[in-house]
């Protein structure tokens, strides 16, 4: 070895050593959600303070590393990642967001971003990706089961319908209890499409139009404390939606996703398939009538005035529909049908499914995102086509969204977010009690032997309507239901623009100003065309056109001064002053045809000249809904040394809907957040974060417009004018409704925050309720607008998250949220009579009422009269129960608690998550069950018919085992021992006419549901890079509403099939079958 060689070796070794000393690593940190770079990720060498952060593209470079160094990647809201350098020079990292993080930034009222630790009240954030992946019918239903204290229900069962969302219970006795929806700082109008219980068509609410692909995140501000700054409109809580803005990213910045969802109705009501149509006409064994040639005749008659014992069937058994299936056994006998054809009398196990089909939703989204020093921009276009489970009611939606931040100068930034939505919908089914409701048909009009001939024969060969003739036996819904289904079409064409434009100006380092213009503009055109039913083209032809325009302007400004280390102390001070001008202008005009003179002419001037179309008060041709609210507010944030925070707010509103001397109202709030772990520095491995929070707030609510004037409605009689008082007495004086609330809670982070727990207890007292209080007609009116009544909500919310496994290649976390809310009606004011919220059949049958001292959601109805020994009293012949004179409380719909349990597994490119949710406790009036019993459709009605009863001798002296002894006692308390026909057991369970017992319909409605399972696979970056085209590809499959682990309702009745999205939740009647959906999605970035 010569010297040269030695020198060379020394050089090489030295160089190697030097290289080892100066290892350089670069790479990109991307998010597993959108595969885009994350700017600002902090990267440091473990156990040192050396580190760097990623730039705007998410890239980084670090030098001077040793191969043994471990790099730690940290970013708020994401799982921490550690990578050993080894000899790598390129380390790309994909960070996975944490489901719930204790730290990080949240968007609060008015879009102000704040550290989670500072906040003394409860908010909850959901990432847009998670919502989009759920592929629920809208952004609100996607949150179902995910947020504590938030109750979401989809009342009408058909996509495109109204969703009800209530945060922390009802704070209003009779008016809207749903939260305010704010999109990019613009509150949007979200009136329910249908609140009426039991009947009508549901065209859905505006939340359905918010495109899920454009959502960055959703924040829920719970209770009046969080929403004190949204004023009257935020008193029920706020759902804050922020849409996506642009990002600088690799590749050409184009992202495409496609999602296909299949919706299947699967949970049909269980029915018997043994016995067909027939009424309780005699106690003898059901048989067919025969004609003179001995041919069986279809039993068209289900009711008679000369039934058993010569009494009318209505007198013996109350009122029931033509769905009565107490007829002969279906054994394939040939029967002369009501239309004269011979057909077999055979089981029809699938007739409940006749008008349902699988539905589908196909969604394409194409977006472009980019950024530079000038700013960022994202443009996105989404197209959704939906085919529902009921034919002839499709919808489609096209959304174009723009989100951009422009750096006008170093101190001035403009933020623009605009969504244009075009939504077209054809028809929405008639639901519940409507005269053309299919589900009512199944329950109440069509018996088990129904063959659905209407499907094929609703029209005659020449295209005219089949008028069926006098023998048509099913008349409890319109006999023309199928005709109308295809010939009476109403379409909705909606154009909607939601836009916000804001300027943020950093005037000085301590003073900023923001001004924002917001607009929510909607134009709806409903057009109804009912085809004429006759050959000439006149009969029942109808046209109606309804055009509405709604413009909501929401302008605000906010000036903020802030100073950290105020006067050289540990005090951070921030003080803001702002104001909002809200203006809603709604106008609708409507025109309709009358009795046609021009054949096939869809035109509102098509009516006979003689016809004077008069529009009653509730069917006005024009409608307005105008309202202004002006507000000024101020808030002061104080922070002491990163562990003690105080926020004080005050807001004054001026509302146009209240009387002049009461239209200005002020309300304050205060909240405190204290972090003992920081203050006393006692962080340990077990407990590393502890926050205590508490807040106190007031909120106030105004009312609907046009309620103050003392007005007269005009009409004519005898060709002279009449004047009629408004049946509702205008308020003699009216003040805003108030809510006072407080909440306390704590947040714990343990085991390096792998376990986090958030607990909140709240109390809300809402008084001075603005009510349309019913008054006895003897006062001359039917109601009065008045401040009255007091409601109390108290409850607790618990959120628990645990990261069970956190390894670079495998993450397993689970979360639990549950809440319990008690909602009491403290007082209904001077008039303490119950206030009815809704009913199915007017004064008959059950209703939901608000009663002083009860929990909100009392179900009232006609109950058994009980003997003092606790048994229901029966008539002496053992056939009939005695029932109460008036409606009395028989149940309550408030659930005991709501909960959700989620799990998430991430392994390599796979992510699997599951969500189970539950509603436990609370009762409903289950109309489908009791009508199923009454009409002999329910499977349990087979028992005695199949010979499982007691021996009973009918009028003809024949004895069969069809008898029952109804449980109960006679007036004197002795137990009933009389055997009666099974009709007396099943028939009088329900009825919409007269005082018929309601109690049997009251059932507990608890359920546990597999709400969501989703599996996503993201192709490895190394593979993607090789394509040179794609930046990312991922595939997903998501199942929603898959099945129930448990439901307390009998016979597979849809536990979530409540009717109406109004405050009365607890009546079920002719609900749709439960549906489940499976979505397939692909996302690719270029």
């Amino acid at each position, binding site marked *: 070895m010569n010297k040269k060689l030695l020198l060379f070796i020394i050089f090489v070794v030295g160089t190697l050593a030097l290289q080892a000393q100066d290892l350089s690593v670069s790479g990109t940190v991307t998010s597993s959600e959108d595969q885009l770079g994350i700017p600002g990720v902090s990267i440091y060498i473990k156990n040192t303070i050396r580190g760097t952060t990623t730039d705007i593209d998410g890239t980084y470079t670090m030098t001077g590393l040793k191969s043994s160094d471990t790099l730690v990647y940290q970013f708020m809201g994401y799982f921490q990642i550690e990578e050993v350098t080894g000899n790598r020079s390129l380390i790309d990292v994909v960070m996975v967001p944490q489901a719930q993080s204790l730290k990080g930034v949240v968007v609060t009222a008015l879009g102000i971003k704040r550290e989670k630790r500072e906040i003394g009240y409860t908010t909850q954030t959901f990432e847009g990706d998670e919502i989009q992946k759920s592929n629920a019918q809208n952004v609100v239903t996607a949150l179902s089961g995910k947020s504590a204290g938030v109750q979401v229900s989809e009342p009408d069962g058909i996509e495109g319908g109204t969703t009800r969302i209530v945060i922390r219970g009802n704070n209003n006795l009779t008016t809207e209890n749903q939260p305010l929806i704010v999109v990019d700082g613009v509150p949007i109008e979200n009136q329910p499409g249908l609140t009426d219980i039991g009947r009508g068509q549901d065209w859905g609410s505006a939340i359905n139009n918010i495109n899920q692909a454009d959502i960055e995140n959703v924040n829920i501000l719970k209770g009046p404390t969080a929403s004190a700054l949204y004023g009257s409109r935020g008193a029920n809580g706020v759902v804050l939606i922020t849409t996506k803005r642009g990002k600088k990213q690799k590749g050409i910045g184009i992202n495409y996703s496609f999602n296909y969802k299949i919706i299947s109705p699967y949970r049909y009501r269980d029915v018997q398939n043994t016995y067909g149509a027939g009424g309780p006409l005699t106690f003898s064994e059901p048989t067919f009538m025969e004609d003179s040639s001995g041919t069986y005749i279809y039993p068209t008659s289900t009711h008679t005035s000369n039934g058993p014992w010569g009494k009318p069937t209505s007198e013996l058994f109350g009122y029931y529909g033509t769905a009565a299936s107490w007829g002969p056994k279906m054994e394939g006998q040939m029967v002369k049908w009501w239309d004269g054809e011979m057909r077999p009398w055979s089981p029809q196990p699938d007739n409940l499914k006749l008008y349902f089909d699988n539905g589908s939703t196909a969604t394409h989204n194409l977006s472009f995102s980019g950024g530079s020093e000038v700013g960022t921009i994202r443009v996105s276009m989404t197209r959704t086509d939906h085919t529902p489970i009921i034919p002839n009611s499709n919808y489609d939606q096209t959304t174009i969204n723009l989100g951009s931040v422009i750096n006008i100068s170093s101190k001035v930034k403009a933020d623009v977010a605009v969504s244009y939505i075009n939504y077209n919908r054809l028809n929405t089914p008639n639901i519940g009690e409507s005269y053309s409701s299919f589900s009512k048909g199944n329950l109440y009009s069509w018996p088990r032997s129904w063959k659905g001939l209407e499907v094929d024969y609703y029209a005659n060969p020449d295209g005219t309507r089949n008028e069926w003739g006098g023998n048509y036996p099913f008349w409890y819904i319109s006999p023309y239901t199928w005709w109308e289904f295809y010939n009476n079409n109403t379409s909705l064409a909606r154009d909607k623009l939601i836009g916000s434009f804001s300027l943020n100006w950093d005037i000085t380092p301590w003073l900023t100003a923001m001004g924002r213009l917001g607009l929510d503009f909607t134009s709806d055109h409903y057009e109804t065309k009912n085809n004429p039913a006759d050959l000439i083209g006149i009969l029942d032809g109808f046209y109606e056109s309804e055009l509405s325009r709604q413009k909501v302007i929401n302008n605000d400004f906010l000036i903020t001064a802030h100073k950290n280390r105020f006067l050289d102390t540990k005090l951070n001070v921030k003080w803001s002053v702002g104001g909002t001008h809200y203006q809603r202008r709604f106008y609708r005009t409507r025109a309709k045809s009358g009795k046609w003179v021009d054949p096939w002419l869809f035109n509102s001037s098509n009516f006979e000249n003689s016809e004077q179309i008069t529009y009653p008060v509730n069917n006005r041709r024009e409608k307005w809904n105008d309202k202004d609210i002006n507000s000024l507010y101020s808030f002061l944030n104080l922070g002491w040394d990163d562990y003690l925070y105080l926020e004080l707010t005050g807001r004054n509103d001026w509302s146009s809907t209240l009387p002049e001397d009461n239209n200005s109202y002020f309300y304050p709030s205060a909240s405190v957040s204290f972090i003992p772990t920081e203050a006393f520095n006692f962080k340990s491995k077990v407990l590393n974060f502890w926050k205590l929070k508490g807040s106190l707030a007031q909120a106030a609510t105004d009312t609907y417009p046009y309620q103050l004037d003392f007005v007269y409605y005009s009409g004519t009689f005898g060709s002279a004018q009449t004047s009629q008082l408004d049946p509702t007495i205008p308020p003699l004086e009216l003040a805003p409704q108030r809510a006072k609330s407080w909440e306390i809670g704590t947040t714990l982070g343990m085991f390096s925050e792998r376990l986090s727990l958030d607990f909140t207890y709240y109390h809300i007292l809402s008084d001075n309720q603005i009510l349309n209080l019913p008054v006895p007609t003897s006062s001359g009116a039917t109601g009065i607008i*008045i401040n009255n009544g007091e409601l109390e909500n108290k409850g607790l919310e618990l959120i628990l998250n645990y990261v069970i496994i956190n390894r670079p290649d495998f993450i397993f976390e689970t979360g639990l949220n549950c809440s319990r809310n008690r909602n009491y009606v403290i007082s209904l004011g001077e008039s303490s009579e119950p206030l009815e919220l809704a009913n199915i059949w007017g004064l008959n049958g059950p209703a939901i009422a608000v009663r002083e001292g009860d929990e909100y959601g009392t179900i009232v109805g006609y109950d058994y009269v009980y003997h003092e020994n606790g048994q229901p009293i029966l008539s002496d012949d053992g056939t009939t129960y005695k029932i109460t004179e008036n409606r009395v409380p028989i149940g309550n719909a408030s659930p005991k608690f709501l909960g959700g349990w989620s799990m998430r597994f991430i392994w390599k490119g796979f992510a699997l998550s599951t969500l189970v949710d539950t509603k436990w406790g609370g009762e409903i009036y289950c109309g489908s069950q009791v009508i199923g019993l009454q009409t002999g459709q329910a499977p349990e009605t087979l028992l005695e018919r199949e010979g499982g009863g007691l021996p009973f001798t009918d009028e003809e002296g024949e004895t069969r085992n069809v008898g029952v002894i109804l449980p109960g006692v006679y007036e004197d308390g002795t137990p009933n021992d009389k055997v009666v026909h099974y009709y007396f057991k099943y028939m009088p369970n329900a009825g919409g006419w007269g005082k018929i017992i309601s109690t049997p319909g009251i059932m507990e409605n608890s359920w546990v549901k597999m709400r969501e399972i989703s599996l996503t696979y993201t192709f490895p970056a190394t593979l993607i890079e090789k394509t040179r085209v794609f930046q990312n590809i991922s595939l997903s499959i998501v199942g929603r509403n898959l099945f129930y682990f448990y439901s307390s309702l009998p016979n597979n009745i849809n536990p979530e099939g409540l009717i109406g999205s109004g405050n009365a939740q607890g009546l079920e009647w002719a609900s749709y079958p439960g549906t489940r959906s499976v979505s397939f999605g692909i996302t690719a970035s270029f």
Partner: protein
Amino acid sequence: MKKLIINIILVCSLSVLISCEKDFGEINKNPYATTITHVGPLFNNVVSSLRLGWDEQFYIHNEVLYKQSQLAALTSEAWSNLSIGTENIWSNYYIALAHIRDIERRLDEMENPNHPDSLNNVRGMVKVLMAYKTFRVTDLFGDMPFFEAGRGYTGVEYLHPNYDSQKDIYLYLLDELKWAADSISLNPQSSTGGSYYSIASYDKLFNGNLLMWKKFANSLRLRHAMRIAEKEPELAASILAEIFENGLPVIEPGEDVVMMPHEQNWLKESTNWSFREHKHLRMGSNLWNQMADNDSNNGTGFYDPRAFIFFETNNDNKWASYPQIPDANTTPSGGVPYGLHRDLNYAIKGETCIYSPFNYYLIRDENTIPEIILTGSEKYFIKAEAYFRGIGLPVDEVLGASEYFEGVIASMDYWDNLKNNSSIWQYTDPNYENTNPYDVANKIFFLEDPNEKLDLIYAQRWIDAFRQPWEAYSLTRRTGRTPWEGEDPLNYFRLPYPPSESEHNTANWSEQSGSMGGDLTTVKVWWMN
């Protein structure tokens, strides 16, 4: 640039700050209705409320009153839902009462101290309307909210009105009617020289004919004074005496008070609906026996021509009545005699229509068959009763019988005219021509026993009220002597209060109900014996 930003932020701030309450009044002004009206249109509204309610006819007349008064037979109690019917009567009345209170408030404000009587005519007209409507309701329900009622618009203290005794209501209304009859002036100038305030163009009941208002007031005094003859004999006698002795103007034949659709420009769709949908009323054996002297099914047994106006043959074109008290052997009634198909196929009433239904024309005509309020024959029957019983008039059987005679002839004329004036009436049973109104009118002269004569007076007044079943029911309840079948006496004396009272006027209703021993149909109203 900075300027632009400052401007934008300024615009936002200013749009908030510029007067926080500006234009609120205009924005919130009710766009659907006016704040301006006057007495005339309010009065016209009250007149329009005299039309019978749809549900009242369906659930109360057809389901209860015809049956209880035995004016017809109810073949099946298909609905038995009193709530809807009572609610209808209640709201019709109290909403009208609120309008009457509003008119009275306006009249008080209009009063001119120099001409205090210039409002008397309008005040009188309003009092007559109030009395007619109130009597109808209290006769059905008994005690009811009245003095505090209908005043909810004036203050929260009136939202839950107290119940008043029927006696107090009766005495008050009889006074009011006297005031109206005395004060309505036919002179154009008031006694103080001012002209009378007139709302003639809004008076769609009598078209501004003030004499008719006076007559209506007196006729109502007769009707209701007689109704309390058992309970307030002296008062009743004094009222009858005052009117009969002084020959005060009352409603005469040909002046009948009615609501007439084609004259008042409305369509009477409610009546046919109430029969078409209910379809269970038929001619009963009780009325048959008052109009026929044998059971012949070809109509030859009828001696009372009104039988052919009130009823018609069954599907087989035969006459048959449904037994007033059916038994197990009674063949059930059916058919669709009131269906609209009869406009085209008159003869088809449905195979099971085996009992005589109400005459289709009587209940189908929407234009020219009126709703009856008070007929010209009523005064004769009241006067006849007064003569027989010596109430306000000396007992005089001869004069009484002659009043009866006039009453029957007036009634026969009335129903004959009603038929003749109907725009749709095309067919009447040929037997109609063979009847003679005088057979019924003369009947009284063949009777010996004054009690039988009085019964006949009651029977004929009862028949005349065929389309005022509430009046027939009052007569049955008051006298207990209208034609009756069956051994059991009437024990259905009043209607229960509608559910809205127990639900929304709970305290007052409970007190009232308690004082009656329950809100029961077996509780007699005050004027009953």
